[in-house]
């Protein structure tokens, strides 16, 4: 039956949604960790809204540290999901810079978005959080960074 395309039809670049019996598995690949983390954020919000319809009118900075890249990923995505609930914003564009520190890693990132508008954003299912099960961030032989994680919906 023809109808309005659902958000999943617009899978962001570098993102693959995986089969997962209960929730949503995600694999993202980027040229480096910065790009992988940007694509991971896009993967999360693309489940909830049509990213192309989210205007970048509000800016939300995120600065976090973690001793490992996989924990950094969970914290980055978790910060964005928390902000969604606190401020009612959904995000469609992201920038990330990751630097190594003496204790691990630091991420300075920005997410741009606007207050959610159910009449315009073509909403999907809310993502509640990121699981540690199946979580991995690794450097591939190609030099690209691959991140895998599961979204709790």
């Amino acid at each position, binding site marked *: *039956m023809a*109808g*309005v395309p*659902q*958000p*999943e039809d617009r899978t962001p670049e570098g993102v693959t*949604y*995986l*089969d*997962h*019996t*209960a*929730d*949503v*598995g995600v694999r993202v690949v980027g040229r480096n960790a910065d790009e992988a983390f940007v694509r991971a954020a896009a993967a999360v919000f693309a489940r*909830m*809204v049509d990213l192309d319809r989210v205007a970048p009118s509000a800016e939300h900075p995120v600065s976090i540290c973690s001793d490992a890249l996989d924990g950094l990923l*969970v914290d980055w995505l*978790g910060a964005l999901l*928390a902000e969604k*609930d*606190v401020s*009612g914003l*959904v995000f469609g564009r992201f920038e990330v810079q990751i630097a190594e520190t003496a204790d691990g890693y630091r991420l300075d990132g920005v997410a741009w978005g606007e207050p*959610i*508008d*159910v009449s315009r*954003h073509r*909403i*999907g*299912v*809310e993502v*509640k*959080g990121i*699981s*540690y*099960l*199946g*979580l991995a961030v690794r450097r591939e032989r190609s030099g690209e960074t691959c991140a895998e994680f599961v979204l*709790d*919906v």
Partner: protein
Amino acid sequence: MSELERVAPTEWRIPKSGSMRVPGHLFADEETIAQLEADEAGRTEWSALRQVRNVASLPGIVSASLALPDVHPGYGFPIGGVGAFDLDEGVAVVGGVGFDINCGVRMLATPLDRDEIDGRIEALGAELYRTVPAGLGSKGKLRLSIAEIDEVLREGAAYVVGRGYGEAEDLAFIEEGGCVGGADPKTVSNLAKQRQFGQVGTLGSGNHYLEVQVVEETLDPVAARVYGLAEGQVVVSIHTGSRALGHQIGQDYLKEMARASEKYGIPIPEREMVCAPIRSPEGQRYLGAVACGANCAFANRQVLAHLVRAAFARICGIAEGAIWTIYDIGHNNAKVEEHTVAGEVRSLLVHRKGSTRAFGPGRPESPEAYRAVGHPTFVGGTMGTASYVLRGTETGMVRTFGSGIHGAGRALSRKKAAKRFWGEDVISELAAAGIRVWAHSKRGIAEEAPGAYKNVERVVEAAVSSGINRAVARLRPLAVLKG
């Protein structure tokens, strides 16, 4: 790796091996076991059998690592997993409760029967869609300050009753009276509270739902009569939990308990199994936070029940007070309970992940009106299939620490379901079968299509045939609200 031993038609045993401190006991039918074995053969973390073994390896676990007939892989514990721990030797496990703390079901009974509601389903469903906040971006009608959120966390359903949401009589028919003791709002982060500001009295999305149902058949007429259920009666089930607050508690304590696990030298087989000794400061903090999450969920369902009453009053012309609470019970929890183990009464911390308490007859925890038969439990079906009311048994008390099943689990991934089903088609097909669906997300409907879930009848049959639960009534959906 040990092999499963079949000990009865729907009972299986994993003998102790390796790091396991107790055996695994699974109550499940052959088809479920075959799926679990296939998952394990896939050699990934996503294996319920592996998770049953992991639970069995935790310090202080008592008797066995249990799995009920709706068992499938989860995060940490398997869904349908039960683990009881000695208070002095045992641990409090984040993955034994999960993120959606006290996710559960409130069932409301109406004085209406099917005939009386048939001509009003369309209007009722539309009214519920209009007035019950559900789905991404929805906001609850009750806006609270941080101090008021703390009151919710301390008092649970009673707080919102005091604010005019529902009846004081509801509280006697909510597990724990709608308030788990020991809740300490200081153990919950400000971020968790801020995330919850707009979410008190919201349904959520995913597998959460609000269903108007009809009692199709009473399978245990005595218990059904005790609960106030009759064939043809219209009831309402609300399935939701602690929303963003519960999730943030889970996220916060995964970190804190990871540090605690290392501090106390507890080997962790999987990151979501992080834990701390129950009596340690970290363990007590976590349990204080779990109690807060539980109370938040009770309050959430209480507000939603009030909105349901109001919708029925406007559309069906009945008094709000004419709708009463049959019961409200959670299926993601950890509670201190008394159980008899090897002839000795012991206090244990019982984790139930995707499993409800299902206490048999005579337990003081059941409402007085239900004590002779035990309190009801609820098993959610899909939008297109039956749901069930069950109750616990003496066998269940002995074999599973008084635990019950809660739902069938998925058969298809969300990705496959979204490819196979189209939201509009699912809605049309259900309408043709007499089930009206209102959804804030058509994509969500595709993922939650009945065909994406396992057969709940099989799961109920396995629970009943193993003697751990008893079927009381079968319900059919008439109208469904999804986020």
